[in-house]
């Protein structure tokens, strides 16, 4: 079971990645760490110094990194591969698809800084479509860790599961949602808080925005359920139906394009159910990214608590 964080001690997610792997590599000699000339960006330098053989800098060659890692996995290695989200997905989509999933390989991919997290790297480095791409690949498990505690759990608890995994999250610290030591289940959503009027399904940093929005909506007499759908695929469809039943509005919130991401996944479930509540997608509208600060980009793309509140109020004619 999970417990919600009682106080905020946010930790950089790249530090979580490095520290968790440091722990795991000690006990599991099959773990290999690969990066495509972003070791300094992913903060895995300590791993490279401690395990120089098992850490491989592939250079700026992402296609070969995915392919070679998949090859290593066929002989029993468990590669953890990092690069920025756009280069971990759209740049290597065929490699991910064929050398990885179709081949039934066994690697973990950390696509960092999806959506607005590209910040001053700007539009060229912004991935608004990584979930759309990865969701479309059979047998790929797609996970958007909500915070440090969950990212750590995900890294540790997917080691013994054979298959292809894509983790998408920031390198920076995000607000703590869960307390350290919380337990989760791959493929199951987590009800963060319960309410009767609306349901907000969120991932990643949008969970914290949903929690802020919930407080504001309470002032209007609207009570909200918030669900962390950290496993975007396979989606916890049963929970989507269960939580949505009887709600006046259903919201999906994600740092991703509205096309093909969490919102689409939830809409697909709802479209096949008798549930008829209005649906709101809090997501990047069919736009490219651009440079900017986190606050600017969240406002620009409508990815904050204010955007959730105003769209819900509008839908409820309040």
């Amino acid at each position, binding site marked *: 079971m999970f417990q919600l964080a009682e106080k905020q001690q946010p930790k950089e997610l790249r530090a979580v990645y490095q520290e968790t792997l440091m722990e795991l590599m000690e006990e599991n000699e099959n773990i290999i760490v690969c990066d495509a000339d972003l070791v300094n960006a992913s903060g895995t330098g300590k791993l490279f110094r401690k395990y120089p053989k098992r850490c491989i800098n592939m250079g700026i060659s992402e*296609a*070969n990194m995915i392919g070679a890692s*998949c090859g290593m996995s*066929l*002989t*029993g290695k468990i590669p953890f591969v990092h690069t920025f989200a756009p280069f971990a997905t759209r740049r290597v989509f065929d*490699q991910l698809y064929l050398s990885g999933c179709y081949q039934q390989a066994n690697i973990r991919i950390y696509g960092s800084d999806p959506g607005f997290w590209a910040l001053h790297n700007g539009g060229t480095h912004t991935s608004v479509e990584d979930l759309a791409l990865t969701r479309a690949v059979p047998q790929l498990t797609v996970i958007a860790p909500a915070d440090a505690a969950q990212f750590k759990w995900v890294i540790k608890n997917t080691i013994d599961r054979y298959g292809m995994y894509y983790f998408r999250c920031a390198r920076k610290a995000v607000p703590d949602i869960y307390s350290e030591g919380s337990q989760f289940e791959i493929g199951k959503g987590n009800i963060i808080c319960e309410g009767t009027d609306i349901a907000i399904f969120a991932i990643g940093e949008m969970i914290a925005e949903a929690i802020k929005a919930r407080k504001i909506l309470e002032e209007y007499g609207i009570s909200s359920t918030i669900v962390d759908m950290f496993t975007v695929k396979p989606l916890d469809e049963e929970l989507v139906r269960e939580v949505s039943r009887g709600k006046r509005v259903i919201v999906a919130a994600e740092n991703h394009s509205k096309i093909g991401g969490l919102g689409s996944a939830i809409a697909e479930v709802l479209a096949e159910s008798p549930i008829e509540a209005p649906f709101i997608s809090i997501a990047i509208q069919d736009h490219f990214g651009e440079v900017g600060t986190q606050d600017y980009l969240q406002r620009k793309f409508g990815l904050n608590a204010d955007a959730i509140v105003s769209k819900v109020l509008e839908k409820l004619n309040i």
Partner: protein
Amino acid sequence: MDDLKRLSAKIRLEVCRMLKKRGFGHLGGALSIVETLSVLYGDVMKINPQNPAWEDRDWFVLSKGHAGPALYATLAIRGYFPMEMLDTLNDNGTRLPSHPDRMKTPGVDVTTGSLGQGISLAVGIAKSFQLSEKSNRVYTILGDGECNEGQVWEALQFAAHHKLSNLVIFIDENHKQLDGPTQEIMELFDLKNKLEAFGFAVKRIKGNDEAEIKKTIHQMFEVKNQACCIILDTIKAQGISYFENLQDNHHIRFSGESELQLNAAIEMLERKLKGGGRLGCFS
């Protein structure tokens, strides 16, 4: 006829039979690697057809995956699966799809087909054995047309940088790709020079000479701490003169003259092997 020449003839015959049954297929690129497959599976590779997943085996990656039928013929002759299964090439629900699929076919180590990807898988496998200090060797065959793919050069850099001398890379230089001569579609220039510039130990040999292929592989075993590559000078549709001379011989749909020529090739190979029945396990 020595054993390897006989095995080559068997493989070539079974490829022709498979494609005749189907009525179409990638004849050209399948036939140009026959002698290399014969040497690998008939002599050089450490394999156990009764236990395809044998931990100490050598691995083979057919990076030019469209030559799948040549690999299937080889695997069947070596006893990985019954010869009759060759008749199911590309049938609905088959275990022998056009391009090799490790989840479907006994003996296929790696799934390939999207050009450029097999070589990356091969370097990863070789790197893994190098890390574990295991003696398994890895063999892969690239097409020359496949070398158009940027990923090939990423993987070659990786092999050279990591000094993967446990990997033998073959480039089947049959001088043609789907749309025509490589020289016209995308000039490869001198592959030997290019590979040497990448830091490889390189040999360029006749790709239809089993003895030379075998000798060169053994020479490559002597190379330490350096990636190695054997460039095979071959002819697309090697071994059947009509198809060697046919302009578009990448993928052939057999009808009219080409069907007659395929039948004639089958008869010729059967005579050569002195027997028309399904050829049993090579040993």
